């Protein structure tokens, strides 16, 4: 009897922790040769931080396709209003501007 409740309790704790899980940091390093030429480390995107502020559909799938490797992100495209530099995001007063390199390209 007690054993049954114990098992249930452990299962409940383990399963409900699924609700706390967030996506981890995403590192944009597929253009690593170009990044090395520019002397910059790859950009680190904190998905969890953005999950706190936005809903999924604010970015997916209009700005970023939600599949790893499906988005060809370059700094040039960011500067032109795609991806991170979207008009509501880092090319707007809502977030820090794109020339603050070290905020994303974390050494």
């Amino acid at each position, binding site marked *: 009897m007690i054993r*049954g409740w114990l098992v249930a309790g452990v299962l409940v704790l383990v399963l409900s922790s699924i*609700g706390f899980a967030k996506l981890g940091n995403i590192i944009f390093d597929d*253009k690593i040769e170009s990044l090395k*030429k520019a002397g910059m480390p790859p950009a680190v995107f904190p998905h969890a931080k953005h*999950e706190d502020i936005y809903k999924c559909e604010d970015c997916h799938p209009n700005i970023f396709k939600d599949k790893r490797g499906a988005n060809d992100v*370059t700094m*040039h495209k960011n500067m032109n209003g795609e991806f991170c530099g979207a008009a509501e995001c880092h090319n707007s*007063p809502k977030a820090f*501007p794109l*020339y603050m390199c070290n905020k994303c390209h974390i050494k």
Partner: protein
Amino acid sequence: MKKCRSIKFLSRMIPLIIFTVFIGFAASKLISQALAAEPAKPAAKPTAKPAEAPPAKPAEPTKPAEKVSPVLDPKDPKSVLYLDTKGKLAGTGDPAKSGPASEAVKAGQGWHPAALAAQILPKDRYGLINWAKAAKDNIITPRHSLDPKEEEMPAMDMDVVIEAKSDFVSDVVYPHYIHTWWLKCEVCHPAIFLPAKGQNNMTMAGIAEGKWCGRCHGKIAFPLADCNRCHTQPKRAVKK
């Protein structure tokens, strides 16, 4: 018999588990909302260096909430040339956010808001006055020097292509003409830029910190927010 018991046990536990998982999701959502709501403020803002170029969007409050100390040493690349009356870097374009633009404006001298609103001075994308356009359109014709005896040096037309180190970001075409319209050679050469091709190893991060172009752009000249204002020449063959 044992099998019977475990089936009974499971059939009671499973709905209980499902119910509790549901509660778990709801609770975690509430918790993360509560966590996100409380510090809407500078939990994550790193210390702002005085030379950090101000974000120039019209509606944005300047993020470095701390006062910038008014260092006015011309040799120090981090010196602040233009502070508003709240002690922050000026140039957000929105006087409601930054306060009066200077002590002079506060004292009653300065741009008359009606004159600005009358669109005499052209504005750029960020609502800041586009001085380059004002100069090119002859809207303003300032004297070349306060000293009446000094000879006027004509503007020099020479475009310098500054290549971006990355494969994708467009190259910068630096126009000497508009800069020499405003400035004498000694202002930049050789203190800020060595006057030889390839001798200045510039980085965007350094520019944002106040070196090279950032000595003026972000302080008295237009801020670095509009990337494509300088990065105008696309790379020819985009490598993958």
